C-alpha cells in the first residue's frame, strides 16, 4: 500500500532550523520503523516560509493536486490556524509536529487533526504547581507578545496562583522586535519577585538568557521557564549563561530510557548533534503514522481514525492520544541546564506525570471502531 505523505514545514524564514530538525526526526523514524508496516511512503515536501497564506496555498496544493493521504508537520500556530479549515473540510488527516496553540485541540479541534507535539498549556501548567512546591511564592513573568506567548504564560499563571503563588508582575515584549531585554530585566529586578518565569524561543531565547546573566540576575532571581528557553538546539549558543536555568518540557535528550537512548544515539550518528524536542516531535509524528498504518488504515478517512488511537512507548516515555481532543498525552520533565563534560547538558530534576488537557470546548465525533 503506497501512502502519500505531505510534509509541510518551514525550510526558510525564522523557523527553518526547526523545519530541518523535525524533518530529520521524521526521516529517522521512517528508517527505523518503516519495516514494521506493509505500507510504503512517498513524501511530498513543501516550504511554508512561516507565512500562513503561503502555507495554506501549499496545503491546498497537496490536497487538491498532489492528492496526499496525510499531511504532517506545521511549526507555527498561525500556519496551523490557517490550514485548519482546509484539512478539516477536505477530510485529510494532519499530524501536527510542533504548533502548540491550545485551540487546535480545543475549540477548533477536528477529528482529522492529531497533535503529536504538545499544547502550550500542557508544557507550562505543571510547572506552576512544581515551582510552588519548591517554595517559590512570588514570580515575575515575561514572554513575547503573541498568542503562543500569552497561552504559555496564562497556563503557568493559572496553576501557579491556584497552588497559592503570586504573580507580582507580568510583561509581554513585542514579538520578534525585541532584541534588547535590558529594560524588562530592570523591571523584573525591581518587582520584588523570588523568581522569574519566561517563555522565549529561538534567537530571542539566546539573547534573553545571555542578557539575564550579564545583568547578574541569576544569583538573586533564579530563572525558570518553559523548556524551549534552553532547548538543546540553542543552549550551546547561550553558553555558561544558561547554567542553572530550570525549565520544563515534554522532552529532554538525557531522559534515561532505552527508547530514548536508541533514538538519541541514532539521531546523533545521523546528524552529528544532540536531538532536540523538535526532532523527537518529527520522529514521533512518523511513528504515529506507521502505527496507524499497522491497523490497516490506508486512505484519508481510515488514517484519520486510526491516528486518534495510536499508543506507543517513545523516547519521551509512554505516549497516547486523548480521543476527546486528539492531543498527545505525555509526561513533562523538569530539568536544569548544567555544565557537562564538554558542553552543556540537561539534568532531569523531576518527571511530572502525564495529564490530559481539559477539553476546552472541543466537540467532535468519537473514534469509530
Amino acid at each position, binding site marked *: 500500500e503506497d501512502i502519500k505523505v505531505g510534509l509541510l514545514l518551514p525550510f526558510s524564514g525564522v523557523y527553518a532550523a526547526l523545519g530541518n530538525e523535525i524533518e530529520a526526526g521524521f526521516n529517522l523514524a521512517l528508517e527505523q520503523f518503516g519495516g514494521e508496516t506493509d505500507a510504503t511512503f512517498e513524501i511530498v515536501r513543501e516550504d511554508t516560509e512561516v*507565512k500562513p*497564506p503561503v502555507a495554506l496555498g501549499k496545503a*491546498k*496544493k497537496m490536497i487538491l493536486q498532489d492528492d496526499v493521504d496525510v499531511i504532517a508537520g506545521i511549526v507555527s500556530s*498561525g500556519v496551523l490556524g490557517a490550514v485548519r479549515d482546509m484539512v478539516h473540510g477536505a477530510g485529510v488527516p494532519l499530524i501536527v509536529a510542533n504548533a502548540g496553540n491550545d485551540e487546535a485541540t480545543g475549540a477548533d479541534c477536528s477529528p482529522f487533526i492529531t497533535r503529536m507535539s504538545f499544547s502550550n498549556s500542557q508544557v507550562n501548567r505543571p510547572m506552576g504547581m512544581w515551582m510552588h512546591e519548591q517554595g517559590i511564592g512570588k514570580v515575575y513573568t515575561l514572554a513575547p507578545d503573541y*498568542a503562543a506567548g500569552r497561552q504559555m504564560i496564562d497556563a503557568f499563571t493559572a496553576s501557579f496562583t491556584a497552588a497559592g503563588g503570586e504573580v507580582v508582575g507580568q510583561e509581554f515584549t513585542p514579538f520578534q522586535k525585541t532584541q534588547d531585554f535590558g529594560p524588562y530585566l530592570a523591571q523584573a529586578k525591581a518587582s520584588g519577585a523570588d523568581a522569574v518565569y519566561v517563555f522565549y524561543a529561538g534567537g530571542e531565547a539566546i539573547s534573553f538568557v545571555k542578557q539575564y546573566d550579564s545583568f547578574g540576575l541569576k544569583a538573586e532571581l533564579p530563572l525558570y521557564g518553559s523548556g524551549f528557553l534552553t532547548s538543546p538546539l540553542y543552549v550551546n549558543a547561550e553558553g555558561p549563561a544558561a547554567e542553572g536555568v530550570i525549565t520544563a518540557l515534554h522532552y529532554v535528550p538525557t531522559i534515561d530510557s532505552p527508547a530514548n537512548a536508541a533514538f538519541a544515539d541514532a539521531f546523533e550518528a545521523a546528524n552529528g548533534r544532540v536531538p532536540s524536542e523538535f526532532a523527537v516531535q518529527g520522529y514521533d509524528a512518523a511513528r504515529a503514522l506507521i502505527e496507524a498504518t499497522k491497523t490497516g488504515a490506508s486512505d484519508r478517512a481510515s488514517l484519520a481514525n486510526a491516528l486518534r488511537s495510536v499508543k506507543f512507548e517513545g523516547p519521551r516515555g509512554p505516549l497516547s492520544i486523548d480521543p476527546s481532543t486528539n492531543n498527545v498525552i505525555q509526561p513533562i520533565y523538569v530539568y536544569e541546564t548544567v555544565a557537562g563534560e564538554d558542553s552543556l547538558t540537561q539534568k532531569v530534576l523531576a518527571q511530572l506525570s502525564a495529564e490530559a488537557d481539559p477539553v476546552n470546548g472541543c466537540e467532535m465525533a468519537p473514534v469509530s471502531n
Partner: protein
Amino acid sequence: MFRHNTLRYAVLVLLASAALFQAFTAEYFGLEILTEILILAMLVLALDIVAGFGGMVSLCHGALMGVGAYAYALLSTTAGIAPPVAMVGAVALTGAIAWAIGAICSRSHGIYFIMATLAFGQMAYSYVFEAPIFGGDDGLGGIARLDLSFVGIDLNDSRSFALFCLVVLGAIYGVSVLILRSGLGRSLTGVMHNEQRMRALGLTVWRVKADVFGLSGMIAGLAGVLAAQHIMYISPGLLSWTVSGEALVVVILGGLGTLVGPLVGAAAFVVLKHELSAVTTYWHLVVGVILIAVVMSRANGIFGWIEARWGDRIERRLSDTTRKPEAKEVLGDA
C-alpha cells in the same frame, strides 16, 4: 505622462492571452498561481500610479491591502454584511485611510516619504497584530467569496475565481490609464517633476497628492478584498512592510512608471518564486542575483529594457510619418 505605444499594446495583449490560456488549461495549483499573480498585479498597479507617476514611493501599500482584506473579513463575517456591500465598504474605507495618509505625508519627499508611509503601515500592522478583534497572530478564517451564482458563476471554483480576478484587473488597468491621462494625472506628473512650480502655478499640491493616493489606496484595498476571498483566511503578515517592499521590488523590476511593466514584473516574480522554491529553499539567493542582474543591465526594469531595445524600432517601422523631429534639426533654428 502615460502613453500607450505599439509595444505596450502588444505586451498587454500577450499578457492577457497568456492569462486566459492559463485560466482555461491549468490545474489547481496553476490557477492558484495565476490568481496570486493577478492580485499582486492589482497591488503593483496601485503602487506604480503613486510611485511611478507621482514620485510618491509608498511602503504602506501592503498595509493598505491588508486593511482592505481585514475590513472585508470583519464586515462580511463578524458584522454579517452581504459580501458585495462589504466589498464596497472595504474599498471605500481603504481609500479614505489612504487619502488621509497621502494628505499627511504630502509634505515629505523621497526617502522621508517612504519612511512616513512605512510608519503608518507599521502602525496598522501593530494594531492589527495586537487588537483582539483581528484574531492576532492567528488570523481570521472562514471568509466567504462573492456570490455570483445568480448569473450562474460559482466563484468557489478556482477557475471562475481566476477569471473573475482577471476581469477585475482589466477594469483596474483601464481606470488607471484614464486617471493618468486625465488632467489630474498630468498635474500629478507635474508635481513629481517640480512641486514648487506647480504651486506657483496655482495648484493645491497636497490635494492632488492626497486624491491620487486615495485612488491608489482604493485599488490596493480591492486587491486586499480579493486576496482575502482568494485565500479565505487572513493574518497580520499581510500588512507587514515586507509585503510593501516586495511590491515595490516588483514595480521596479517590471519598470517603474510604465504601468505595463509592473504587470510583467508581477508575473515574472511570482512564477520565478514558485519555480525556484520548488527546487531550492535558497530561492532568495537566486531571486536576489536576478534582481541585481536586471539592474545592472542599466534599464528601467524588465519592461524598460524591452522598450529601450525594441520600442523605438517598432514604433519607427510602424509610423514613419509621426516621427519626432530630431533634436539636431531643431538646434539653432531660433
